[in-house]
Structure formats: structure tokens, C-alpha cells
């Protein structure tokens, strides 16, 4: 491939991924509302479009046309910057997620990910920890007591769970010997999924992912009964939509990371023994990746309506006294596993 071809292929992939994120977020919001209604025995949105499928689009249009109110007591620059940071972080992490194996389209070798960097996992960890800034800035700059408390709570929560997340990832790295997401997926061939080999690490990572995305049962930063809207109390119009979109985009990236690190990514166990064609195998594998992600997203919504919210001291003691020791035990477990079985 010459340089022009590389640039064209990369641009096509980038535009495709960005469009995919936007469409996925819009449908995720719709499905969350429908599934919530289904679990609570309600009807849910069913008027806009076929079965209410255009509801989110209509909501976005409404937010576009809403007046943008910035409180006079706020720090204007930080107030505007906060949702942009949140969205930027949510979008940029998608660049390193592998959707499938390398494929050959029209004679070109194409990797099914935007960028194949050798430190992919580190890149995702670094960017997700930047997400704290968006929320802290929003809380600090609004000039409201509720926002400040929400922002501080959120940053303490996110940094607490980030530690156990990092330690869980170290367990994955022990087995894969690489920070490259594609190589981590390839290391989980057959039934050697990390979720099966290191169940403790899988559980700590999933719980930390819930806490990092501020989803129930860990949505303390925006606990409605006590903090009104938490860090986005003073946000309206497109800036509010920015936080909203970022939250759902973070949910998708969390599911994609869990799939890549623990559930074998795009791999289907023993598919090469079925003797299917190359094209069909690839299509099935890409489909498997999206199915796993969709299942995890459903799991996120399911948990939201099954488990009540934690108290703040319970949240902190769960993070430091349960998840953190468990993730250290997981590292020792994986290290012993490699020593004994020579994996």
C-alpha cells in the first residue's frame, strides 16, 4: 500500500467509527428507556417514529433548540470546557478497540481498528482517568453547592476505583505479555478467556467499570434525592447533552474494554475447526464482538434496575477494603497459575 491508500483507508475507518459511536449512543439511550419500562412494567417511549425509535433524535433536537443558561456566579471558561473534555475523553478511547481480525478487502490488508498501537491498554487507562477532570471542572466552575459536592464525590469515587482497575488489568498483562489490545485478544484463543482463568480479576474489573462510568449502583455524583443533579445541576442545552452523550459513550467503551480484556474480544472458540470460509468466519467474529458488547450493555441496564444505590461510606469501603485486596489476590493467583501450568 502506498501513502495515499493508507490515508484514505484510515480516514474511512475513522469516519465509520465516529458515525458508529453516534448511532450506537442514540440507540443505547432509546433501548435503555425501553428496557427500563419493560423491567418496571411500564410502556416507555412509543410515539416518535416506529415504536418510538426516533425518541432520542427528537430529544437531541429539543436540546439543540434550548436556551443555554450560564449562571452568573460560574467560571465561564471552565464551565464551557468541562462538557468538551468529557466528550473528548469518551470519543478518543474508541481508537484502539479491535472489532475483528485483520481482513483483506479488495486486495488491501486492513486492520479492523482505527490505530494499532502497542500501548493500547495504557492509552485507554490514561484517557479514562482524564475523564475525572471534566466532572471536577463542571462541579467546581458551576458556583453551586450541589455541583461542588457532586464533583468532589465523583472525583474521589473515580480515583478510588481506578486503583483496583489498574491492578486487575495487570493480571491480564501477565498472561498476554503485551499492552496491545489485538494481542490480548489473540492470547485468549479457544476457551482461554481471561474471565474463566481469572474470575476474581474479572469481577473487580467489572465493578470498577461500573464505578468509573458513574452508573447505578455507584451513581453517587448525581444522586437525585440528595444532590439535585450533582455536577450537572447548572448545565442546560447542548452542554448538558454533552455530558449525557459522554456518559453513554463511556458505557459502550467500558463494555468494549471488558469484552477485549476478559471475554475473548472477537474470538469464537474453535470456529476454525468448523471449516467455514474466510469471509464468513470474519463476519461471524465481528458479529460475536458486537453481540458480547450488546450483552454487556444490557447487563449495565439490568443492574441499574436491580440494585439500589450505595451509601457513600459503603462505596468507599467497598472500593478500598474489598475490591483493592481482591485485585491484589488476583495478581498472585495469575502469577501462581503461570508458574504451575506454564501457560
Amino acid at each position: 500500500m502506498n501513502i495515499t491508500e493508507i490515508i484514505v483507508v484510515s480516514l474511512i475507518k475513522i469516519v465509520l467509527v465516529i458515525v458508529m459511536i453516534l448511532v450506537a449512543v442514540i440507540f443505547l439511550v432509546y433501548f435503555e428507556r425501553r428496557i427500563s419500562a419493560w423491567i418496571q412494567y411500564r410502556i416507555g417511549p412509543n410515539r416518535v417514529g416506529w415504536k418510538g425509535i426516533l425518541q432520542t433524535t427528537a430529544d437531541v433536537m429539543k436540546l439543540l433548540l434550548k436556551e443555554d443558561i450560564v449562571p452568573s456566579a460560574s467560571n465561564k471558561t471552565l464551565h464551557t470546557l468541562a462538557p468538551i473534555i468529557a466528550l473528548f475523553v469518551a470519543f478518543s478511547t474508541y481508537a484502539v478497540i479491535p472489532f475483528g481480525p485483520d481482513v483483506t478487502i479488495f486486495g488491501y490488508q486492513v486492520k479492523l481498528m482505527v490505530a494499532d498501537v502497542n500501548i493500547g491498554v495504557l492509552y485507554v487507562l490514561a484517557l479514562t482517568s482524564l475523564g475525572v477532570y471534566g466532572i471536577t471542572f463542571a462541579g467546581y466552575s458551576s458556583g453551586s453547592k450541589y455541583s461542588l459536592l457532586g464533583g468532589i464525590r465523583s472525583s474521589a469515587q473515580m480515583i478510588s476505583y481506578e486503583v483496583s482497575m489498574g491492578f486487575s488489568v495487570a493480571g491480564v498483562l501477565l498472561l498476554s505479555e503485551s499492552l496491545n489490545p489485538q494481542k490480548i485478544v489473540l492470547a485468549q484463543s479457544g476457551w482461554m478467556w481471561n474471565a474463566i482463568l481469572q474470575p476474581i480479576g474479572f469481577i473487580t474489573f467489572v465493578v470498577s467499570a461500573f464505578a468509573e462510568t458513574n452508573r447505578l449502583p455507584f451513581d453517587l455524583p448525581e444522586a437525585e434525592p440528595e444532590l439535585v443533579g450533582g455536577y450537572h445541576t447548572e448545565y442546560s442545552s447542548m452542554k448538558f447533552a454533552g455530558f449525557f452523550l459522554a456518559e453513554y459513550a463511556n458505557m459502550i467503551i467500558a463494555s468494549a474494554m471488558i469484552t477485549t480484556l476478559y471475554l475473548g474480544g472477537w474470538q469464537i472458540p474453535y470456529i476454525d475447526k468448523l471449516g467455514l470460509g474466510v469471509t464468513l468466519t470474519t463476519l461471524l467474529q465481528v458479529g460475536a464482538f458486537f453481540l458480547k458488547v450488546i450483552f454487556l450493555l444490557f447487563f449495565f441496564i439490568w443492574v441499574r434496575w436491580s440494585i439500589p444505590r450505595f451509601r457513600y461510606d459503603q462505596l468507599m469501603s467497598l472500593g478500598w477494603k474489598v475490591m483493592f485486596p481482591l485485585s491484589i489476590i488476583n495478581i498472585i493467583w495469575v502469577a501462581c497459575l503461570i508458574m504451575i501450568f506454564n501457560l
Partner: protein
Amino acid sequence: MLTEFGKIFVFVLLAVVFVAIVIFFAKLIRPSRITHEKTKIYECGEDAKGSPWVKFNIRFYVVALIFLIFDVEVVLLFPWALSYKEYGTYGFLAGIIFLLILGLGMAYEWRKGDLEWARPKITPPELKNTSNKTEKINS
């Protein structure tokens, strides 16, 4: 030549441009009739009292300090995890000793009550005596 990080840069750039376009477009079509009442801080319908930057619990700083220590340890652990299989038993022992020291630090924090979110209970000695006396009288 477009390197892999160059692709990430283009990706991020496109995402930022997209967000900027949406915000600019929204600015063109939305109304703007700001009044004094609208720009007030929400505080359940009351006029906001005092500074919005209220004092908050000192525990948040303690949590941030503990995070700082342990997150650095995560960074130290990653290179060990990546080259673990090359070093065999030596690597295993080195890792276990490192984790042991980490666990000791953790146990110290725990014992000192820094992981406790609610304030630890302190019972002054005089109070204990009075309670003993009352118990004696009662019995």
C-alpha cells in the same frame, strides 16, 4: 507517512471538530433571552446563601493521597507483568515481595483508620470511668 499515533491524532481531531460544529450550530439556532432570574444558582427556589465553594470533608484529601501512592505502584507493576514469563521463579519471587510490601502499606493504612469513611470512634478515658461508675450504681 501516517503513524499509528498519527491516526489517533486525526481521530481525536475529527471528534473535537464534530463537537465544535455542533456547539456552534446550536448557538446559531437557539434563542437567547437571558434575564437576571435565569442566571441565578439553583438552590431549591431560595436565594443562594454564602459562598458556593463550601468547606468539605478532609477525608477527600486523604483518599487522594492514598490513591497517589497506590497508582504509582500500578505503574511499577505493569513492566513486571509484561516481562514476567521471561524471568521464571526469580520474577515470581520479586513480584511476591513487592506485593507483600504493598500489602503491608495497605494493612498500615487500614489499621490507622484512614480507609474508614465515617469518623473513627474515640472514647476518652474519663468517660469510660463514669460509665463504669454508673453501671456499678445501677447494679
